[in-house]
């Protein structure tokens, strides 16, 4: 029996290694010379460690500008989605109104809308607004997402009715109930949902591909794409240096909020 249990751990650890080892090699190769990346491919520790890839990268592209674009976009999307999501979930939690179930199902339905069906009209609208090659233009379509509403709604349902009713009887204005009662209770899920929103938008690829054509307006994933070629001409140490830069922020956020993030994802699936 004991032996059997160990075997399952062997399988699981192999899967974990399969998931994580490529990332370790990515970081390691980003500190190798191009030559070493071929000759000592399977060395996890570089023999001649160098930061030249990062310096070269910084010469070829505007690293700081690209990082700022990505950060700015992800921040706008995160704040926008948190605000709209909290307001909407609060309206659902505290009021009875006509068409509630229809609106709720509409939110569920948004998950099933493929981006292909909105991409031409949204491209035309963004272009009419003069927001092509603009971070705002690439943030706006990303705001249209109901997953935050669903997660907040689930958390708000755990707030006892008596608490909100008591506040209403005392004629405390809604604004105060929202900011002084609901928001503090929701703090953990706001943090975790915010972290998930930020990471997702930081990695967003589809809308930037459609909206950003001017290299100065690029986000990091678009810049990385230019360093990858299927024909084998890729300078991998350089591509891996850029990738390493891209993964640092999501990793830090995960290290700090890991427990909250995993809880939120668990909750999002509970029906």
């Amino acid at each position, binding site marked *: 029996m004991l032996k059997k249990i160990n075997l399952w751990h062997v399988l699981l650890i192999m899967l*974990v290694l399969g998931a994580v080892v490529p990332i370790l090699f990515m970081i390691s190769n980003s500190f190798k010379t191009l030559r070493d990346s071929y000759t000592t491919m399977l060395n996890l520790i570089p023999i001649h460690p160098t930061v030249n890839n990062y310096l070269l990268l910084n010469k070829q592209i505007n690293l700081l500008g690209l990082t700022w674009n990505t950060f700015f976009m992800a921040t706008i999307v995160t704040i926008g989605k948190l605000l709209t999501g909290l307001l909407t979930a609060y309206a659902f939690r505290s009021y009875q109104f006509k068409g509630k179930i229809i*609106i709720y199902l509409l939110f569920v339905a948004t998950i099933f809308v493929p981006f292909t*069906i*909105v991409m031409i009209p949204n491209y035309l609208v963004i272009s009419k607004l003069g927001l092509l090659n603009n971070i705002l233009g690439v943030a706006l379509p990303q705001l249209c997402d109901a997953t935050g509403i669903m997660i907040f709604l689930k958390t708000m349902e755990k707030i006892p009715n008596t608490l909100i009713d008591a506040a209403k009887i005392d004629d405390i204005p809604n604004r105060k109930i929202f900011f002084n009662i609901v928001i503090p209770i929701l703090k953990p899920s706001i943090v975790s949902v915010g972290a998930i929103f930020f990471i997702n938008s930081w990695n967003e*690829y589809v809308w930037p*591909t459609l909206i950003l054509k001017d290299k100065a307006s690029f986000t990091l994933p678009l810049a990385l794409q230019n360093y990858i070629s299927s024909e084998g001409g890729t300078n991998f140490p350089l591509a891996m240096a850029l990738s390493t830069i891209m993964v640092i922020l*999501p990793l830090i956020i995960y290290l700090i909020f890991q427990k909250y993030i995993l809880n939120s994802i668990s909750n999002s699936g509970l029906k």
Partner: protein
Amino acid sequence: MLNKNKKILPFLYLLPTAILLLVFMIVPILYTFYLSFFDWNLIAPTKEFVGLKNYVEVFTDPINQKVILNTLIYILFLIVLNFVIPYFISLIVKFFIKKMQGAYKVLFFIPSLFSLVVGAMLFTWILNPVSGPIAYLMKSLGMTMPNWSNSGILAITVICFITNWKVFGYNFILLLTGLGSIPANIIDAAKIDGIPKWKLIWNVILPMNRGIAIYVLILTIVQGLQYVFTPINVITTGGPYYGSSNIIYQTYLNAFVLYKTGTSSALAIVTFIVFLVLLFIEIRFVEGKAKNYA
């Protein structure tokens, strides 16, 4: 005045979301539906009405037929890689090991944090047929690595593995949570009765966990087909000769590379109809909660 205020207030809270949904989702869906009956190129001042021609083309054009077949292959691969395997692993973590469950959750989730472009880069490196580590290992064993990007089916396989790398941990956690919400006394009772574990899983656990399993399965199809857009665009751009394209990617190609908005819109509408069928299944089996708001 106060009463009126109370009636308007909830709609005021809903307003920002409503405007966003209207401008960036509902009106666009209707407009795409409208465009699907016209020939247009995104720029020309006039659109030519062509009736159902674009829809007929979706099913009769040989390239589109190839793409629809590819889409079915993608769905099959995605279900196996991103649903069946994570489900199997979540059952093992829940019922066959006692320690380190938390650690596996934390570790499996890590790739979900990263961009699919990073995933595409990593896999083109690992699987580079000339200079990648796998090719290197195969060479030392006297084998040669096939040039997978020249074969549609191999490219599809690699692309599905890239999304698997990203999605596995996420789906694993959802399914594990579902298993965790099954009452412990049911599992204990089976243990006392000496029912074998796999029998218990097959006859009791899987049916009880059906709701979340269907949710993840549908998510795997709906999101998976959209997730593969990124590695397709980064690695193969749909090639060789549409061999790794799917209905989502073909919709993009028609709109922004071939400038055929009519064909693109018809493909998008067909995709949406398929997704809506999946949505109804989801509501039927999973979204029991909607009743609370009736």
